[in-house]
C-alpha cells in the first residue's frame, strides 16, 4: 500500500506540522507523528475521476456510493474536528484503509474492488457506516470462471496448515501408542490407536498417494500373500490386529516403534510437499472414489470394526480442502457450491444412519452388504460432486 498523502487545498505545507500537532491526541512525544507527516513526499494532485468523500462529525457525504468493479481512487476529506481513519470493509475485514487523516486534511486511497456491497467508516466508531456498492464489469465476470493463480495461495496455505496440524497429532498419537505398548497398557494403547487413525484419515487424501509410506503405515492383510502372518503386514492394521484380535500388547513393540518413526517421516514429507491448485479438489475426489470402491465395501478395520468412525473422519478430511475452495466455487457457480455442500451433508447423514444414536457405532461386520453398497454410492456421488469443482474454476 502506498503511504498516505495528506494535503490541504490552499494551505502552505509549512502549516502541516502545526496542524498535525494540534490534531494529535496525545502529546507525550507528538513530534513523531508530525515528523512522519512532514517526511511524506509532496502531495499529489487529485486524480481525475476520483470519488470525493467528505467525512463530517457524524456522517460521510455521500453515505451511499456506487462504483464499477476494478480500480477506484477515493479522495477523502476530513471535515470533522478529530483525526480519523477511513476504511472500506467487507464484513469485518478491512479491504483498504487510510490512517490518521488530520482535521482539515485530505488523503487519497486506491482500491481494487470486486462486485459486492461494502461498508465505509465515517469517523467515530459509534457513527453510522456508509454503503459502497460495486457493480460487475466484464473483467470481474471473467475472473469468476477462471480465478488467477494468486486466488489459490490462501486455500493452499490453509490446507498445508491443516496437514501440518493433523500429521502432528498423528505423530503425537503414535508416540503415545508406543508408550502404552511399552507399559503393556491395552486400554491406553487402544485409545492412542484410535486417535492416530482419526488423524491419519484426515490426511489420507494426500498421504494415500505417497506409496512407500502408505505401504508401511497402512497395508491391509487382504492384499498380502501371507495375510496377517506376512512380514510386510506392518503399520496401523498390524497394531489393530494385536490390540483387538489378540487382545494383547505383546510382540507389538517393534511394530509401534516403526509406526511412530514412519508417521514422523510422513509428517515431514507432508511439510515439504508442493501442491497445485487442482490438487485440492482432485485429491479429495480421488480419495472419495477410492473409499467408495474399496474400504466401504470390504471394510478396512477388520479387527476393531470401527470403520464407521473412520469413515466419518475421512469425510472431515475430504471436506477441509473442498471447503477452502468453496468461496471461489460460490463466485463461479452458487448452484454448484450448494450441490457440493449438500453432497457432504448427505454422506455424513448416510454414515450417521448406520452409526445410530449410540456412543459407539456398531461394528462394521454388522453392516449388511446392501447397506455397504448404498454407502458406497453415497461416497461415489460425493466424488462426482467434488470432481465438478476443478472445471468450474478453470483448473482443467
Amino acid at each position, binding site marked *: 500500500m502506498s503511504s498516505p498523502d495528506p494535503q490541504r487545498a490552499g494551505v502552505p505545507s509549512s502549516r502541516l506540522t502545526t496542524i498535525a500537532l494540534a490534531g494529535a491526541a496525545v502529546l507525550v512525544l507528538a513530534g*513523531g507523528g508530525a515528523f512522519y507527516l512532514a517526511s511524506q513526499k509532496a502531495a499529489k494532485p487529485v486524480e481525475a475521476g476520483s470519488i470525493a468523500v467528505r467525512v463530517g462529525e457524524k456522517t460521510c457525504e455521500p453515505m451511499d456510493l456506487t462504483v464499477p468493479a476494478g480500480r477506484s481512487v477515493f479522495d477523502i476529506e476530513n471535515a470533522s474536528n*478529530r483525526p480519523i481513519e477511513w476504511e472500506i470493509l467487507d464484513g469485518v475485514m478491512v479491504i483498504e484503509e487510510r490512517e490518521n487523516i488530520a482535521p482539515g486534511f485530505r488523503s487519497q486511497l486506491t482500491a481494487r474492488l470486486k462486485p459486492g456491497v461494502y461498508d465505509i467508516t465515517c469517523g467515530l466508531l459509534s457513527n453510522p457506516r456508509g454503503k459502497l456498492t460495486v457493480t460487475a464489469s466484464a473483467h470481474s465476470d471473467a475472473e469468476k470462471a477462471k480465478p488467477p493463480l494468486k486466488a489459490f495461495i490462501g486455500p493452499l496455505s490453509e490446507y498445508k496448515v491443516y496437514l501440518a496440524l493433523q500429521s502432528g497429532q498423528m505423530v503425537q498419537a503414535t508416540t503415545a501408542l508406543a508408550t502404552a505398548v511399552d507399559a503393556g497398557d491395552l486400554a491406553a494403547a487402544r485409545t492412542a490407536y484410535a486417535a492416530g487413525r482419526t488423524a491419519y484419515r484426515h490426511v489420507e487424501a494426500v498421504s494415500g498417494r505417497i506409496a512407500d509410506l502408505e505401504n508401511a503405515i497402512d497395508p491391509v492383510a487382504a492384499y498380502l500373500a501371507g495375510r496377517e502372518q506376512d512380514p510386510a503386514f506392518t503399520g496401523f492394521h498390524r497394531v489393530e490386529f494385536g490390540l483387538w484380535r489378540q487382545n494383547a500388547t505383546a510382540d507389538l513393540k517393534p511394530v509401534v516403534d516403526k509406526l511412530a518413526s514412519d508417521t514422523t517421516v510422513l509428517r515431514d514429507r507432508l511439510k515439504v510437499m508442493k501442491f497445485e491448485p487442482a490438487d485440492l479438489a482432485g485429491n479429495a475426489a480421488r480419495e472419495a472414489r477410492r473409499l467408495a470402491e474399496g474400504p466401504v465395501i470390504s471394510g478396512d478395520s477388520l479387527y476393531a470394526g470401527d470403520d464407521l468412525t473412520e469413515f466419518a473422519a475421512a469425510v472431515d478430511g475430504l471436506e477441509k480442502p473442498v471447503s477452502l475452495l468453496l468461496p471461489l466455487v460460490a463466485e463461479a457457480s452458487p448452484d454448484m457450491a450448494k450441490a457440493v455442500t449438500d453432497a457432504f451433508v448427505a454422506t455424513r447423514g448416510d454414515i450417521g444412519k448406520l452409526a445410530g444414536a449410540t456412543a459407539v457405532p456398531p461394528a462394521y461386520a454388522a453392516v449388511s452388504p446392501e447397506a455397504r453398497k448404498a454407502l458406497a454410492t453415497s461416497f461415489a456421488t460425493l466424488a462426482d460432486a467434488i470432481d465438478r469443482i476443478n472445471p468450474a474454476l478453470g483448473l482443467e
Partner: protein
Amino acid sequence: MRISGLVGASALALIVSSGAFAQQASLDLVEPIAEYKIYVTEKVAKLVEDTTAFTAAVKAGEVDKAKALFAPTRVSYEAIEPIAELFSDLDVSIDSRADDYEKAEADPEFPGFHRIEYGLWEKNSTDGLAPVADKLLVDVKALEGRIASLTFPPEKVVGGAAVLMEEVAATKISGEEDRYSHTDLWDFRGNFDGARKIVELVRPLIAAKEADFLKTVDANFDTVDKTLSKYKDGDGYVTYDKLTEDDRKVLAASVNTLAEDLSTLRGKLGLD
C-alpha cells in the same frame, strides 16, 4: 468471513496492473503464508493464556499484579497486528483508544486493554473493570477461534507489515497507544518482531532479485533493535518517557523508511 471478495478484488488488480514487467504471484508463497498462520496461531494461544492471568488479576482487585502483567500480555497481540485488518471488529473491542469514542475515557463504550490501562494507571484502581476484563477475555478467545478458521489472504499478510509500520510511524511513535502506562516500547517490540517475521518468511522468494532492498530493510530493523535494546529493563522495557529525543528521532527515521520500503513488498511478490 467472506474471503472470496478480497481474493476477487486482488485478482482483478492483477489484470488491471499487469504491465509488461508486472511480477506474477507465485505458488512459492504458499509455504510462507502457511508458516505465518502457524506463527499467528502460536501467538494467539499465548495471548489467551496471558490474558487469562491478566484479567484474573484485574478481577481480583490486584492492581500491582495487573499492572505488571499488562505490557507482557499485550506483546503477543502487538506481534500479530500486521493482520489486524482481518478482524477489525475484534481489534476495536480489544485494542481501540479513547479517541475513537465520543466521550473519550468517560464513554461507557470504551473497551479492552486500554480501558483497563486507564483504570489501572489513572485511577490506580480496578473499580468497575470486572465486566471490561470479562469481555476482553471473551474477545481474545473469540480471536483464537476466528484465526483458526480464517484463510489468510496473501496480499493482506504481505501488505500488513507495511500497514503496521505506517501506523507506528503515523501514530504510535507519539506514545499515544499506551498513554496511561507508557509501556509503548513493549508494544514496539511486538510490532517490529511481527513485521520482521513476514519479511523473513518471504525472504527466500526475493533474496536473489532484491538483495539491495533486503539489505536496507535489514539495516533499519537492526537499527530499531539496537535502539530498543538500550531501554531494556529485565524482561521488558522502561517507560516511553525515558526515550531520549535523539533516539526517538532514530526510531522515527527507521520506521518511516521501513513503512515506505515495505509498502513495495506486495508488488515485488506480485500481490498488488
